[in-house]
Each structure stands twice: as structure tokens, then as C-alpha cells.
């Protein structure tokens, strides 16, 4: 219920803000700050329940011209529909944030729920915010959960990250870490450089027909959809690295950039149940099946629809070094009504679209199919071209080996033979051939090709996969420190072993990127990063956003939480108690919520620059 209410209010506010912005000037992106703060504490209703106080606040230019009274009235009606009582001022015990003092809009509601339900609600709200933030990079979304004094906070904001403009003030964040986690496979292959971005291919606009039953409700105007597709992670830097597409993740956004989910109680999509609506998969040697449970890692945005892809390799053997990619498909709806002077897309229209989306898609099935297929084909053809190139390399290898073998084995020049064997430190010709083959495969596969469009960062070798998603996402109220920024970028300059031999390639890296790196290094040179007492920065950054684990520990072991806050009291401000538990997945958390035995929970410290962000239990947050 908490999730539904929070989502409803956020959707309503964003639609109102967008509508107001459109009134001022078309195509402008929304700017401002939104806060969702959830305070969980022991309930007076019983031991099996927790009290949940949710505060939603908004500040910034987008609130200024909105008639507050009307908003309150409409939000009141919406919450009443959900039987959620709300209060306008901040309730005692909510999360603290400086925004709460200056917010133009602020409302709070209180619920009592079972811990398991609340946990899922929190995750759902977090996902919704994350997904919304992907297309509203200029809105700073603060999300924090306070559980008996232990707080987890995240800020989603695209200010510092690159985005690509899609349409009508909607931008799409292109930071790949929002979509997929790739550390494990990368580190295992010994390659720790990756492009940071996704490179979406924008499709053409497709007009959608309005189904009869939607038109009958009074819905007027025209609907269009624009597809965009990208492969994640981008492997342009490693053109010879074998890769396959393991999944297709589809994200659906309404005209104001709000996600539309096909999943939920009794929801399913007939259109998306047939994977052939999106591509002729068999043409690319793939088969697709709908993934009925698209739940992903909580640090990544969860897709609205997900397909599993199976690569039909024919008689070829499976290459263990094959990296997996995900095909991301973004479907953006656009609404216009030429008979209306003012923007007419409102909360009601969103509800209408969201509830009839499947009918809308089916009504224009062929057009949607053509539009989606065109953009997916572009991506898949590139993928196939890459595969063909790799095939060409593979076919060349035996010819090269055969030629070298012929010359070496038939040579009567003992010095030549000896030098060849010594170079590769082998005893005889057969060993030499094996060594040459291995060396060839190695250097070929790891070929690094500079790309002007890619943004390269180093993936730390000892990184926990979880930190990848967290490392670039500053927590509530925290601006990314110069040290953090420079650390991630300056690492580009420190060449790993396999790159040392590719100095010439490395030299080819774009000058712009070098200049950027140099600037950042200069800026950062005077401020060495401090190591937190409990371990590396990387290890703790990860855990700062590991809300699932924290909630786990809070829900199941409140005493641990209390211990943690006590522990924190002995430390300087600026550290957060976090769980080092590996039980990150939803499943584990669910098990904890269900009262199963919790995994071992450890406490670590995460350094944060701004002391007012986190405080020991009972400390009044500023």
C-alpha cells in the first residue's frame, strides 16, 4: 500500500510539473528536487507489524507556479481512494533532509504493515524512482529509508552523467551501470576496461491507433511511440571479444517519462507475450522466451518486460570466454492533441494509457512491430557483423598457424629454430605451435580498439559486483567529491598489464578524453583520498547503497542495528553503519522477512564526506 500511495503521488506530481513546464515552453526538461523518505519503526499495533511514515517532498522551479490548494485537493482524493490517511506537516521521526525545510510541497502519510510487505514496498518505490530518474536527469531524486535509526539513502540524479535526448524534454541516461552488472565476467577474463555508456539507436516515430474502448472513455489526442535500442554493456572497445545477447530488457515510458509497468496484480501483456513482435530472432540465430520474473538486482533499473535469449550455436562449441550482453529496448510514448491549446496529458490520461496499453499496442500491432523491429534489427545486425568479423579471425588462425608451422618445422636454420623456441620458452616445435596458438588467441581476443563515442573507465579487479552500481551514485545530500570523480577517471591513465603492450593503441585514444583526464587529475592532485578504517573505499561504497542487506539486518536483527548505532556513536560523524552481508538478492531478503534464519551479518563503515548525512541513533538530523 505504501508503494502504491507513494507511486501515485509521485506520478501525479511529475505529470503536474511536466504539464506546467509544457505550458511555459515545450520541450523543456523538468528540473528540481524530489524526496521520498520512509521511516520504519516498531508499531504499536503489534510485534508482527511496523509503522511506516512516508514523506514526499518537492522543491525547485517546477513547484513554483502550481496552485497548491488544487494539488492538495487532488492528492487527497487519490490517497483517499487508496484508504491512506495523510498529513501535511512532517511527522515526528521521519528522515531528515535539508530539503524538508525548503520544500514547496510536502506531505506525509502513516501506515502499519507487516515487515515483509514493507520491504517489498520499499524496493518497489526505489525501483520506481530509479526508473523515473533515468529519463529525468535534471530532477534530483533523494530516497532514504530510516529503520530504527539506521539509514540508507540514495540520490538519483543525472547532472553529472551523460544522457541522450529522446524527445520532448525527455532524456535518457546512458550510464550502463544503471542497466547491467558486468564485473564478474570482466574480471575473470582479465579485462578491466569497459565503456561506461550505452549508445542507444533511436527508431522512427510510430503512430498508434486509439482503441475503441479507450476512445469511448473520452480519451482524445494522438499517441505515438518512439523506440530506442542499445546493447549493454557496450563492447566496442573489444571488437574481438566473443559476446552473445542473453536477455532483452524493455522499458516503457509514458509521455511524461514515467515508467509503465506490465507487471503487478493480474497484469500481463498479450503484445509482449509474443517475442516475435520485436524481432525475427531466428534470423540472428536466437530464440526468445518471455521471462515471467524480470526482477533484477536492486541496483539496476528493473525492466518492464524481459525476454531470455538463447543463442543457437549450431554445431559450434560453446566458448567459455563469451561475454553476455543485454539488449535494452526503450519505448517512449508521446502524446499530442492538436485540438487543445494547452497540454492536456494529465493523471487521468496516464491511468487510461497505463490500463489500456496492451490494447493500444495490439490495435497498432503491425506498425509497432515494424517500428520496434527496425531499431532492434539495426542493433542486431551490428551484433551479427561483429560475430562475422570474429568468425573471420577464427578462420584465419589455422592458416597462420599452418604457415608458421611449415616454415619452422622445415627450416634447416638451427639458429632461427632455436630463437623461435626460446622466444616462447618452449622445448619443441609442437609445443611452439600450441604456444603460438594460445598467444594468438590471447592477443586477438583482447584487442582494444579506441572509440571516439565510448567513455572508458576501469573496473576495479577486486571489486564486488555490487559496488559497480553504487560507486557513481552519491547518497542523499552528498555531492560526488572531487576525489571520487578523479579516482574513477584517473584510473584510465594507469594502464593495466595487458594494455602496456598496446601503447600504440592507447596513444590513439581521443585527445578530448586525455584532456579531460588531465584536467581531472590536476584538480584532484591536491586532495588524496582517505581510506576508511574498516577497509577500502570501494568495499564500503558498495554497501552504502545496499539497502536490501541493511533492511534485512534491521528487520530481522534490530538489536544488531542498535549495536551498530551504538558503535557509530563512538566514531566521528560521517560514517554509516552498513551490512557486509552477501545476502543481497531479493530472495534472501524475502527469506529474512519470512522469519528464516538470516545470513551472518557483519558491520562495516562507509566514509561519507558530509557529516550531516548520517548520524547515530537518536541524533536529530539537520
Amino acid at each position, binding site marked *: 500500500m505504501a508503494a502504491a500511495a507513494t507511486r501515485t503521488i509521485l506520478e501525479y506530481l511529475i505529470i503536474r510539473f511536466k504539464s506546467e513546464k509544457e505550458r511555459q515552453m515545450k520541450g523543456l526538461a523538468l528540473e528540481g528536487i524530489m524526496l521520498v523518505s520512509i521511516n520504519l519503526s516498531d508499531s504499536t499495533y503489534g510485534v508482527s507489524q511496523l509503522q511506516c511514515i512516508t514523506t514526499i517532498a518537492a522543491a525547485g522551479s517546477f513547484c513554483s507556479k502550481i496552485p497548491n490548494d488544487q494539488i492538495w485537493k487532488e492528492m487527497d482524493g487519490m490517497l483517499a481512494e487508496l484508504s491512506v490517511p495523510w498529513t501535511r506537516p512532517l511527522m515526528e521521526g521521519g528522515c531528515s533532509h535539508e530539503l524538508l525545510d525548503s520544500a514547496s510541497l510536502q506531505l506525509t502519510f502513516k501506515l502499519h504493515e507487516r515487515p515483509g510487505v514493507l520491504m517489498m514496498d520499499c524496493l518497489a518505490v526505489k525501483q520506481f524512482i530509479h526508473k523515473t530518474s533515468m529519463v529525468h536527469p535534471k530532477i534530483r531524486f533523494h530516497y532514504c529509508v530510516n529503520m530504527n535509526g539506521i539509514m540508507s539513502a540514495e540520490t538519483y540524479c543525472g547532472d553529472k552523467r551523460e544522457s541522450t535526448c529522446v524527445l520532448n524534454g525527455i532524456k535518457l541516461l546512458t550510464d550502463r551501470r544503471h542497466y547491467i552488472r558486468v564485473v564478474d565476467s570482466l574480471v575473470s577474463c582479465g579485462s578491466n576496461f569497459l565503456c561506461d555508456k550505452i549508445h542507444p539507436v533511436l527508431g522512427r516515430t510510430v503512430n498508434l491507433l486509439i482503441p475503441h474502448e479507450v476512445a469511448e472513455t473520452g480519451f482524445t489526442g494522438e499517441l505515438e511511440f518512439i523506440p530506442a535500442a542499445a546493447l549493454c554493456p557496450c563492447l566496442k572497445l573489444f571488437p574481438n571479444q566473443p559476446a552473445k545477447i542473453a536477455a532483452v530488457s524493455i522499458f516503457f515510458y509514458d509521455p511524461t517519462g514515467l515508467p509503465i509497468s506490465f507487471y503487478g496484480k493480474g497484469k500481463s501483456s498479450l503484445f509482449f507475450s509474443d517475442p516475435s513482435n520485436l524481432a525475427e530472432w531466428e534470423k540472428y540465430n536466437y530464440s526468445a522466451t518471455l521471462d515471467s520474473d524480470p526482477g533484477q538486482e536492486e541496483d539496476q533499473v528493473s525492466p518492464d518486460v524481459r525476454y531470455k535469449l538463447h543463442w543457437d550455436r549450431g554445431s559450434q562449441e560453446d566458448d567459455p570466454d563469451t561475454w553476455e550482453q543485454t539488449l535494452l529496448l526503450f519505448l517512449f510514448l508521446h502524446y499530442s492533441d492538436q485540438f487543445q491549446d494547452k497540454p492536456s496529458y494529465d493523471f487521468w490520461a496516464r491511468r487510461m494509457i497505463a490500463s489500456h496499453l496492451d490494447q493500444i499496442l495490439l490495435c497498432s500491432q503491425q506498425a509497432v512491430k515494424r517500428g520496434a523491429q527496425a531499431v532492434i534489427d539495426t542493433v542486431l545486425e551490428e551484433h551479427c557483423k561483429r560475430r562475422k568479423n570474429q568468425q573471420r579471425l577464427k578462420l584465419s588462425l589455422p*592458416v597462420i598457424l599452418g604457415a608458421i608451422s611449415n616454415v619452422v618445422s622445415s627450416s634447416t636454420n638451427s639458429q632461427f629454430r632455436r630463437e623461435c623456441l626460446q622466444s616462447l620458452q618452449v622445448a619443441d616445435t609442437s609445443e611452439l605451435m600450441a604456444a603460438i596458438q594460445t598467444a594468438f588467441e590471447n592477443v586477438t581476443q583482447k584487442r582494444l580498439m579506441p572509440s571516439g563515442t565510448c567513455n572508458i573507465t576501469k573496473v576495479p579487479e577486486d571489486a564486488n559486483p555490487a559496488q559497480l552500481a553504487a560507486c557513481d551514485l552519491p547518497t542523499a545530500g552528498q555531492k560526488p567529491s572531487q576525489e571520487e570523480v578523479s579516482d574513477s577517471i584517473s584510473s584510465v591513465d594507469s594502464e593495466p598489464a595487458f594494455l602496456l603492450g598496446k601503447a600504440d593503441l592507447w596513444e590513439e585514444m581521443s585527445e578530448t578524453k586525455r584532456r579531460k583526464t588531465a584536467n581531472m587529475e590536476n584538480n584532484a592532485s591536491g586532495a588524496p583520498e582517505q581510506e576508511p578504517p574498516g577497509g577500502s573505499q570501494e568495499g564500503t561504497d558498495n554497501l552504502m547503497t545496499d539497502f536490501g542487506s541493511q533492511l534485512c539486518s534491521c528487520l530481522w536483527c534490530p538489536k544488531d542495528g542498535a549495536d551498530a548505532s551504538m558503535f557509530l556513536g563512538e566514531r566521528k560523524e560521517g560514517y554509516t553503519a552498513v551490512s557486509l552481508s552477501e545476502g543481497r538478492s531479493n530472495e534472501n531478503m524475502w527469506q529474512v522477512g519470512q522469519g528464516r534464519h538470516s545470513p551472518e551479518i557483519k558491520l562495516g563503515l562507509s566514509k561519507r564526506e558530509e557529516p550531516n548525512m548520517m548520524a547515530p541513533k537518536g541524533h536529530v538530523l539537520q
Partner: protein
Amino acid sequence: MSLSLPGVTDWSAFTFLDHHRTALLQSIKEESREETRIEETGPSNNIREITCSEILGAIENVIQDIVTSLARNKAPVLTLVNRSDWRNIQFKDSVGLQMISHHTTRKIKSDCPKSATKFALILKMLSVIYKMVQDNTYATKRDIYYSDTLLFGSQSVVDNIVNDISCMLKIPRRSLHILSTTKGCISGNLSYTEEDGTKVNCTCNATAVIVPSNVQGIRNVITDAKFILIVEKDATFQRLLDDDFCNKLSPCIMITGKGVPDLNTRLLVRKLWDTCHIPIFTLMDADPHGIEIMCIYKYGSVSMSFEAHHLTVPAIRWLGLLPSDIERLNIPKDALIPLTKRDQNKLASMQKRPYMACQPMWKKEMEIMAASKMKAEIQALMSLSSDYLSRVYLPNKLQFGGWI
């Protein structure tokens, strides 16, 4: 008319030809003196035989570089000269088109899909050459292509790779034990012994002799020919044979490369020049393509410029069919063909070539062609009379110095 009975040409009337030969011999002497002077002051440019061990060593060096590169965890790369880049070519009057010493190169990467196939094929070819040199066997490019058609894909791929290797190793193709399939024909007052001992007599008869595959290996070249006539097209060559031209203007040698000459035909022309030092004339169509072929004989091609010293004969002269002959001989308009856009472009680009600067007469002829926008094949002379070419045109041209 100065001609008498067939086979008994009165050469005393061919004073222009004599003067031309004298001038050629004089220039050879001067060049020889110049070369001696350069040799004394600088490195020798003399052609010397490349030994088998040198070839094997060169190939082993390539392989060793690859292995060393792999040992350093670097993708092997082959460096080839940009053979077909005009920027790598310089024109020297005495040689023709030759490659400059500081030429640009291109890298054939083993880890790049675009070049990996070429990299593999070059290595494959190197291993084939290595084996042939070791075994002292020879193969034509055609043989090599047919040894694995699936791998090579097309004959031109093999041809290109062989030339690239020759240029990369700085070893002439024939030294790599690769022979090109010969298509050229020769006829006339000439006899020689092939490398295997076969005695060949090209004395005029109805059928011509195929240019030998191993020109380098021929010896005992004997000829009394007063001149050599290079004929562009086989049809014209056959027609001249039928007209018994070699006997009418005996002694002489006729040779054709049947269009763009193969390496052996060019080598033979060069060999005959080096051996006999007699005037060499070309009989080409009066079109850009004909001029281009003539330039290949005389100055060499861009892609083989690295071997220009062994292939070009700058002493070659343009006998016919000159564009100015069209008007001079009143060749009927209907025997002419309009220049296509492509012809015009080719003509324009040829006029800009470096060697045209020292050929003002050629340039003038090309300007005439460009202005008239017409071209003519040698067969256009048949519109005047069926044997006009052999009976009137060529004897007159030779007798009165009608070459440029």
C-alpha cells in the same frame, strides 16, 4: 616505295631508323658512364642474383618477428609498402616510374578482422615460397591459386599477395620461384635457349611463339633484327603475321602482350633491349587505353614500380596509331569512335602524369585526341585498304621516322 622483294628489305633507305639506333646507343653509353660515376661515389644499383639462402632468411625473419611479437603479448603486424600510391612513386627519365626510398607503408594487423585474412594469406604464401625455394621448384601464380581456390578466393588475390611479398622482402618475384602465366607471343628474327635447354626459333611463320615463363633463364639470344615492334592487341599481331610483315620488313621482331602485358612479356622486352639495343616501337590503338599500355612497357606501372629497374624500357617509341595520323591519313569518320566520359577522364589524368612533362610530342597527340573527342583502333586503317597497315603504314612510318 623502298621495299623490294619479301625478305630482302633495302635497309639503306631506312636512315631515320639508323640514326635512331645510333642515338640510342649514344645515350646508353652516356647512361653507362653516369652509372659508373654513381657507383664510384655511392652504393651500387646493379642487379645481382639473390641466393636461395637469402630468400629463406628473409622469410624466416618475418616468421621470427611474428613469434617475438607474440612472446611480447602483442598482435603481430606485417608492414607493406603502399605500392599503388602515386605519392610513393617518382619518375626518372632513364628508368621510368620507380618507388621512392622513403615510401609510405600500411600495416596488416593479425587481430583486425579486415586484415586478418590478408595476414593469413601472406603467411600462407610465404610458407609456399619457402617450400619451393627449399625444393628448387617453381610454380605459376595460377598453380598456387588452384592449390587452394577456397582459401584464396580469386586469382587477383594471389597476384596481389605475391606482389606485396615481393615488395616487402625486396626480392623480385621470379627469385621467389613464382612464375606468372604467360600470355604474350613473339615472332620474328629471334632464337634463344630456354633454361631447360630447349632451343626456340621464332623465325616468322604462321604461328607465334609463346613468351617463355622463365625469361630470366633464357640464354644464347641470337637476332639480326633491326627493330622490335610491340603490338598492343593479339588481333593486330595475328593480322601482321598473316600479312607476312616479319618477312616484308625482315629482319625484325614482333611481340604482343595481348593487352596489358604480363610480367614475362615485359621482362622479355627488357631482356631484348638489354641484349640487342635495337629500336623498339609500339603499335597501339589511338585511345587512352592504348597509351596506358604503351606507358606500362616504357615507364612501368605504379603497382610494380618497386621492380621498375628490371621491367621498363624508356627507349620505347610511339609509332602508331597516333591521333594526328587520323586526320593526316583522312581516316573516314565512321571508322572512329567517340571518346566516352571515362576515356576523357583517363586521358585527362594521364596528361598529368609525371612522365608526360618530358614527352611534349605525346602530350600534343593526347591534346589532339582530347580536342577531337574521337578515338581510333588500329583496325581503322583497314578502312583505307585491307593491308594498309602492313604494306603502307608501318613501312612508311619506319622509313620516314614517324615515331615520337
